[in-house]
């Protein structure tokens, strides 16, 4: 006999029903209460682990934007608040849970994040189900605005294909077409390598070899031994973050920079700052650079971040967060509504104003895949700046994003708008 069981089940069912009922009754009340309150931007980005610095910088940029938005009258006249959650660097489960907290408990109106590509994809899906406008700040894998695109998901940083396309011809013309790839073994690395391989095939180059390195690898010497044995003209290093610091530092200690050209696609100031001066070498792509004397408003932005960042200059990550948060405000104020569909429609083909863009060529959100078409900066690293210790990159060429992005019909993005 199980006397307790049916009663327990019954009680549980009643409880569940009661909670659900209460939630339904309470829901309209919450919404009305919210109408008068602040507008909330939720940001789920890494504060711990490998990407902690990138995440912190994105949050700092977003916070600066929120402060500026408030100073200029807020979003549709209401004050804006930035709610930040630590997504961790590698645990997508935690990122999903934190995003649900932002959406379900804090009732955010917008979502920002994430540095990690896998998390950016996961967040996009959650935001899509919840019908919330989501701006991906710094996850680069193509799928975000490609095969996994959503009407409500916009992206500030570039696709990996844009990064490889922007630098490939410089590498081929200047240093030769025999390339060896050292590729981090996850979506970001794979799509970067595919991008370069597509270029090589189309332009009669040779891939003399490739090695997949585990994410978070510390010792790269055996891969570097392989790479030099293949006698390439260029060793393409596709690692990011700490992996990039490790592989470049070790390649230079082995003297490989004197025998081959070292290069890659995406490079960041965070990485160059973490390298000893002798290892700041190679040809790379920056997604934003703080030293653009001829572009209006950049110096104001640099000064504002320096104030918050112990005197250090903004990196592309600060810019991603800044543009991400501003995009929310511009969309809401432009559509004069917090309705996600109206805001997303407003952003189709929308050109960022110069004080937010902070780069030449009027970046805009492309209609069809919601990908920002910014300017990419192809150039080379330098050991130390002439007038500022953080001037570690020399821009050789500015490339228009739209010239290097795959056309919308080739990205695999099939946008489904709500009825």
């Amino acid at each position, binding site marked *: 006999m199980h006397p307790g069981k049916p009663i327990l089940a019954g009680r549980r069912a009643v409880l569940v029903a009661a909670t659900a009922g209460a939630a339904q009754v309470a829901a309209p009340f919450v919404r009305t209460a919210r109408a008068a309150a602040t507008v909330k931007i939720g940001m789920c980005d890494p504060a*711990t*682990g*490998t990407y*902690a*610095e990138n995440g*912190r910088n994105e949050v700092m940029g977003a916070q600066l934007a929120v402060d500026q938005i408030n100073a200029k009258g807020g979003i549709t006249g209401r004050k804006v608040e930035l709610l930040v959650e630590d997504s961790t660097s590698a645990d997508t489960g935690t990122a999903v849970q934190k995003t649900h907290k932002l959406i379900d408990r804090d009732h955010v109106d917008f979502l920002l994040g994430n540095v990690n590509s896998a998390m950016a994809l996961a967040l996009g899906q959650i935001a899509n189900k919840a019908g919330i406008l989501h701006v991906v700040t710094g996850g680069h894998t193509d799928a975000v605005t490609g095969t996994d695109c959503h009407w409500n998901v916009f992206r500030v940083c570039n696709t990996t294909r844009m990064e490889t396309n922007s630098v490939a011809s410089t590498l081929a013309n200047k240093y030769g077409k025999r390339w060896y790839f050292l590729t981090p*073994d996850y979506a970001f690395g794979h799509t970067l390598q595919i991008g370069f391989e597509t270029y090589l095939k189309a332009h009669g180059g040779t891939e003399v070899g490739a*090695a*997949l*390195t*585990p994410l*978070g*690898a*510390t*010792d790269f*010497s*055996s*891969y*570097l*031994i*392989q790479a*030099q*044995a293949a006698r390439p003209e260029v060793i393409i290093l596709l690692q990011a973050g*700490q992996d990039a*610091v*490790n592989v470049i*530092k*070790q390649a*230079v*200690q*082995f*003297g*490989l920079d004197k*025998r081959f050209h070292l290069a890659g696609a995406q490079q960041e100031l*965070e*990485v160059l*700052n*973490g*390298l*000893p*001066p*002798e290892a700041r070498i190679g040809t790379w792509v920056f997604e934003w650079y703080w030293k653009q004397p001829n572009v209006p408003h950049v110096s104001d932005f640099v000064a504002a971040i320096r104030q918050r960042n112990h005197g250090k200059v903004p990196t592309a990550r600060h810019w991603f967060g800044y543009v991400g948060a501003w995009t929310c405000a511009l969309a809401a104020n432009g559509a004069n509504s917090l309705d996600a569909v109206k805001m997303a429609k407003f952003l189709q083909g929308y050109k960022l104003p110069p004080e937010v863009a902070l780069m030449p060529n009027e970046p805009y959100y492309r209609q069809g895949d919601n990908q920002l078409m910014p300017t990419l900066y192809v150039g080379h690293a330098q050991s130390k700046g002439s007038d500022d210790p953080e001037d570690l990159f020399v821009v050789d060429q500015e490339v228009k994003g739209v010239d290097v992005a795959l056309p919308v019909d080739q990205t695999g993005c099939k946008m489904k708008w709500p009825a």
Partner: protein
Amino acid sequence: MTQLVLFNVFNGLIIGAFYALMALGLSLILNLSSVINFAHGGFLALGAYLAFALTPYVGFWGALLLSPLLTAVVGVVVERVLIRRVYGRDPLYSLLLTFGLAFMLEDGLRAVWGPGTQPFSVPDWMQTPLSDEYFFLTGYRLFMVALAAVAVLLLFLLLSRTRIGMRIRAGTLDLETVSVLGVNVRALRTLNFGVGIFLAGLAGVLAAGMLGLQPTLGTDLIMPSFVAIIIGGLGSLPGTLLGGLLVGVASGVTAVFFPSATEAVIYVLMALVLLVRPRGLLGEEGRF
């Protein structure tokens, strides 16, 4: 191909010596106090950051000497205040404690030095490869091996030739009897913990010269060391040394054939050892 394999075997030995240095510290603590020190990676990173902070004042060599000592001092304090309380209890307590400590150390470093990577250089002359053909033999790597070898030698001398060393070894075998014979076991454990953490600090300084310096430095390096201990055999320091070298070589050689499996291979190796010889290559039977 043969040349490539040989290159990688040599290179694996270099890296292996480094893993062995870390693993020996872990092993020392585990053997005497039965504490699996998950915070070892945190102490390693602390050693690296202290070296980074000290270098402008005392130079690389001064930092190399001072930083492991300071790390050991921190270790001793932590042992006295925290670790000591969980001796003799269910291993779960020490696991949880050191696991938490690892996070505290990592976040502590982040709070002081920020989450970014810090540039840490070694003296110029160490940076250059000895020859074009053997380019992976840089001055620094050879120095790393030499220093690891000296540290290991000194450790073994300490354990085999000194009274304290003999007590540590005796304690490893039967702590209760040693205690009954009038040895101050508390002090012995503290000292032993300090020596273990000193090795972590030393490994940290060496790692900082080769890798980027950031708060997660230790976390990334700690797993191969645990694997080295298991392969070598719990309770055996020569086993740990052998395990470290094997881990380095196995992952180096794998890089020639299956580059993406260099990390997986050390766990495969561990699984094989556990299947065929569960006590490890040089471990004593029935110890754990």
